[in-house]
């Protein structure tokens, strides 16, 4: 089903309500979900999906997903957190994710931004 303008507007409003001190608040999200359960909108599924996407994107903006082929120490993760928090001027937490397909190196994803420092990624760019 195509989202109506009202549903898009409502999802954005609910998303704005879910932000506290510049970050997504778990309490507020729970409150929004409870409200939606009590007062279902015209397109409940559509609104929830849009809301889910907005919240997911916001969480991704404050998370550095660190894909790595070899071992990554806690110090390196802390270094990544510090560097990206400085760069984006907001607190960023690093989440490690082992990925042997990278061959070697790291791939860090923060929201839409992707930092490619893996051998697999560089081989792919060479081949293209």
């Amino acid at each position, binding site marked *: 089903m195509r989202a109506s303008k009202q549903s898009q507007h409502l999802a954005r409003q609910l998303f704005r309500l879910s932000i506290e001190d510049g970050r997504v608040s778990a309490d507020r999200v729970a409150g929004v979900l409870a409200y939606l359960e009590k007062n279902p909108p015209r397109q409940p599924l559509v609104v929830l999906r849009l809301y889910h996407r907005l919240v997911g*994107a916001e969480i991704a903006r404050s998370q550095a997903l660190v894909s790595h082929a070899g071992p990554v120490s806690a110090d390196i993760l802390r270094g990544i957190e510090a560097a990206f928090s400085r760069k984006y001027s907001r607190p960023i937490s690093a989440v490690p994710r082992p990925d042997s397909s990278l061959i070697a190196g790291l791939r860090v994803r923060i*929201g*839409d*931004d992707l*930092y490619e*420092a893996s*051998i697999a990624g*560089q081989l792919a*760019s060479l081949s293209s």
Partner: protein
Amino acid sequence: MSTVIEQIEKQISQLSSRAVKKNTGTIRSVADGVARVDGLSEVMYNEMVQFPGNAIGIALNLEEDEVGCVVLGDVSALREGDEVSTTGRLLSVPVGKGLLGRVVDALGRPVDGKGPIDSTETYPVEKIAPGIIVRKSVSQPVLTGIMAIDSMIPIGRGQRELIIGDRGTGKTTIAIDTIINQARINRQGFASKDPGFRPLYTIYVAVGQKNSNIARTIASLEAAGAMEYTIIVAAPAADNPANQYIAPYSGAAMGEWFMENGMDALIVYDDLSKHAVAYRQISLILKRPSGREAYPGDVFYLHSRLLERSARLAGKGSLTALPIIETLAGDVSAYIPTNVISITDGQIYLETDLFNQGVRPAVSVGLSVSRVGSSAQLKMTKQVAGKLKGELAQFRELAAFAQFGSDLDARTKAQLDRGSRIVELFKQPAFNPIPVEVQAAVLWGMQNNYFDSIDVKRIVEAANNLKEFLTARKTSLLDTLRQKAAFDESLNAEFKKALDEWKSSYSA
């Protein structure tokens, strides 16, 4: 051997020390050559984006929570959830002389099977047109080789002259004739080793045409030896609308390279009606608000920003544009025709009725105009064709009145007679451009009453005979005329002598 190993090691060391930042998104949906992408928060308008499988796209719709991209290439391999990344670059195409003689697609990739393009430079497909200060007024001619056009609707280098008419009225033929004539002039100019000679390179952009038509055009150009000075950009009807939308801009970028590097180029957009239709299709799929005839609001800007890129630049070269528009049932007041008419510096209007009457090229003198070309017309043509347009317009008016009455005074009869002779004189077969000095000589003959005693039905034959006579037996006279580019007293006397000789031999 060790140097090879060192090179690889160097490459590895460069690779391992570099972290590349990309802005990414994921495909939400793909339909009709348009992908809707989640993410790409840093993408710029018109930026090239990279899809999986080496397909590229252009970001055209930047919305609050998604980006609409047209995909240039095969969309069948794209799936929902695939990753898309920005490139930080605008779409560019290869440019340069290495493209001459080649047939390329909308992205400048060769499609003629003649191997890779020999080009190291690229130009962005979308570029802001030259401003006011750098422009220079039109003063050098573009000779089409078509007598009706060169004498009455002259085109200058840097001009935008629209070719408009219904289907099957010979619009493409005029463009191809012009390209063939440029090749002939270029060959002649290079052979003369004249340091002041400025060749005119041509670019033919085929938008939304049948592949068979494009193949026929290429064959005609090859047969006339014009391909070596021509680039063909093909976005046939089978291509996706995104390629058809981008092809004229790619052609313009290739033409701009010649202009920026002090050379002259001519670009034919065949045709902009189909280009507008392709853009309408993309816009509707992108869910942009539609206006008149379902075209988006910026359809005027679509063509104005393209045609404004044609110019004559001070201290550099020029880019002349011959856009083609197809009308429906002769309706020049439709949306796209009026838009393009208002953008261009004149139009050559081709009439179906004239075409069916056997007047080919079927140029309607009354509705055709060249707003800036007269200052680029050669003096010799001006001398012999200055009054022709008026005479023909009078003839059409009188011919319409003459249909109602049988009694005509001698003056009217003479005008009608002369008009019908001029119409016959301008008949010219396709792909047979006439050198400008021959055109001027034939028109000189008409102005000096050498055709008056010839039966109207035999004017075409007589004119052909005169052209053959002049090119075979009076080459030096034609050469003198070409060099002087004007009739003076001595040339007038020599032409009188030559045409008297022709007249006696032709009558006999």
